[in-house]
């Protein structure tokens, strides 16, 4: 019973309802292949939103995720070298790089005490400067086998990206809800002062949270590179607002301290579903935009009510 009234379940129910309704409205929408594709698209948002969920629950927000996705997708081809036939090494290097970017965000937030919005916004600005230097630098299209596999393979009929997402989800949910580290994050988000006075190592936990966000954004960059065969400046742009929306539609409180990635997962799928729905509706761009906003607002009414706090 408790499950049925929980926010994540509510979000799943909404996704199912939207899918069913849309399949009636447009034949083909509910085809297995299409749903599978939507989940695959959702994987990218879901990965970015994994880190975002951690950050939001910890009481922060990460506005640099889009730039990190782009940096990841742009810098990976620069690193593809012949010596490594699997393509794993460059991926690890890029993930290390994006994790470090996240850690720097964490440093600014924890040690310089810069507000997360400002710190990560400034980081996004930095990364733009970095992109001017690195973008367009690869004169050769170097196919990375691992990245290509991630973006295109379908082992047992399931897209590799979705498998990656499932694996990440299991880890994220475990860390979030079944470890002391997860509990510290919730505590920091609910009341940072009380958390600190209870002995929660606030600095290192903050660093870890933003590091995770950098890591999952980097991972999303790798995936989206594989899916599109080519990185470009702006490839990460759609994922900033999408990641925040997925987190909130999944019932996580934007004020921190309450929430779960279990809600973010259907939240991400919900967003790509709505986007796909809007695409197949024949309307002028203005009306489409209005429809998109209204749908989000309507769904928010169902799943996103903030609990009163004192």
């Amino acid at each position, binding site marked *: 019973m408790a499950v049925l009234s929980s926010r994540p379940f509510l979000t799943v129910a909404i996704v199912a309802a939207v899918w069913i309704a849309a399949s009636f409205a447009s034949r083909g929408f509910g085809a297995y292949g299409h749903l599978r594709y939507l989940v695959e698209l959702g994987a990218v948002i879901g990965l970015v939103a994994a880190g975002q969920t951690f950050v939001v629950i910890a009481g922060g927000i990460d506005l640099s995720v889009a730039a990190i996705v782009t940096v990841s997708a742009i810098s990976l081809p620069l690193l593809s070298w012949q010596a490594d036939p699997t393509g794993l090494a460059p991926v690890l290097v890029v993930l290390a790089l994006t994790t470090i970017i996240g850690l720097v965000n964490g440093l600014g937030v924890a040690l310089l005490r810069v507000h997360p919005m400002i710190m990560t916004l400034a980081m996004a600005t930095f990364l733009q400067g970095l992109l001017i230097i690195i973008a367009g630098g690869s004169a050769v299209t170097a196919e990375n086998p691992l990245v290509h596999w991630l973006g295109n393979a379908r082992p047992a009929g399931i897209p590799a990206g979705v498998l990656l997402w499932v694996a990440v989800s299991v880890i994220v949910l475990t860390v979030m809800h079944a470890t*002391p580290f997860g*509990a*510290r994050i919730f505590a920091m988000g609910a009341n940072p002062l009380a*958390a600190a006075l*209870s*002995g*929660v*190592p606030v600095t290192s936990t903050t660093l870890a949270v933003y590091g995770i966000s950098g890591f999952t954004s980097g991972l999303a960059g790798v995936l989206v590179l594989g899916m599109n065969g080519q990185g470009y400046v702006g490839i990460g742009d759609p994922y900033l607002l999408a990641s925040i929306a997925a987190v909130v539609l999944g019932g996580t409180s934007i004020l921190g301290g309450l929430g779960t990635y279990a809600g973010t997962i259907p939240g991400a799928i919900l967003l790509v579903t709505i986007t796909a729905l809007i695409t197949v509706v024949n309307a002028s761009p203005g009306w489409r935009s209005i429809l998109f906003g209204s749908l989000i607002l309507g769904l928010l009414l169902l799943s996103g009510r903030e609990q009163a*706090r004192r």
Partner: protein
Amino acid sequence: MAPLLAARGVSKSFFGNPVLRDVSIALQPGRVHALLGENGAGKSTLINLLSGALRPDGGTIEVDGRAVARMTPAHARQAGIAVVQQELSLTASLSIAENIGLGAYPKRFGLVDYSALAARAKAACELVGLHEPLSTPVGRLPLGRRQMVEIAKALYRKPRVLILDEPTSSLSATETKILTDLLERLRSEGIAILYISHRLNEVMTLCQHVTVLKDGICTADRTLEGTDAAGLVRLMVGRDPGDLFPQWRPSASPANAVSVRNFSAGLMRDVDLDIRTGEVLGIGGLVGQGQEDLLLGLYGAIPARTASATINGTPGLPGGVPRANALGLAYVPADRKREGLHLIHTITTNMMLPAFARLPALKLRSRRAERETARGLAAQLGIKGDLARQAQALSGGNQQKVALAKWMPHDPVVLLLNDPTRGVDVETKREIYLMLRAFAAAGKAVVLLSSDTPELVHLCERVAVVRDGRIAAMLERAALSEEAIVSAAMGAENRKVAA
């Protein structure tokens, strides 16, 4: 004569849990009416009904003998009802005057009339002995002074009915005296006063009538004449009370648990202090003299400097809370909502937090073990309520118990307590006192910062009285008395010399 304000057979439940059942109370002019009960008995809930902040599920609220269909805070204000809430209703960034007038500003041409506001706020402040500039943002005041602002805010409304929910819980003895004198005067002017407190001696001296709640049911509604404190406690808990303070047996050893020289942190400047193992060391003084900074500095929560320091045999200050915890220090803050608890999390989670903070980050948790620990702690401290509920659903006193309980599994060697019995009912106080003494007897050190002077007198080996960022006096057990503490806090010796 019709009571100015009354509740007739009111009931209230939260999420199906009855909190008040068929309770009646009548406030008469010129009378101080005490409302007593254990933590969670429903006192705050009752005054929320009286003041329109909550709506009763059943029963009626009457003003001047007439039932009010739908009481709201606005109605209450118009009817001359003012409430000093247990939880402060102030806004940190607004000035003292703007806070005092909040919701009832004097107007001129639709604008706030600042000069009228200043004049009226100043009058209210003078009544409660607040002398800070009226433009001071409230956020800069220590807790005790904020409580006075809250009281001034109620007086500003020139109430006919004044309701005070534990107004003295964060006040020092001097401030309490100002307040009780003031209430006495207001009473003689014909105001009806409802007074909630867990300090029974205050109730005995101040009040004429008492209503006692137990588990949401009214167990007594009678005049105070002919009752003594023990009788009141009997009404509240339903059995004979023991002595409030436990038998005192010396347990201090000469060994130092903590020793600092030239210690400075926050307001505290160049303090030398030794805390012996096995003692309860009291910290007294007027509110806001730097006592809190002393504790926080030792705890590594604010930057501190020192010439030399030894904590449990380890040289140096902790420099951070996790390190302090590792050295065996634990701290229980005074402002439980802001610093002690995670109100939106469950009681269990709150109790487990210190454990989460020190366990290996990625070790898997055991929910069952957590539940059991929490249940044990709840039983030990008598915390009532469903442990899977949010901490914000607990009454104030029970919240305080949770803030204390969470350290128990970690067996701290030095317990730093910042006003641990604030807003705690007598029975619980007794339990806490017993715990503290037992703790000391087990060879550990307790530092007890308290605004409740009798507590310091009866529990402590020694009391350090802080004035102006320094330890003005270190009173040994033999020299401990309420008068000694108060006069040291006021710098009375100096004044005597000067006179």
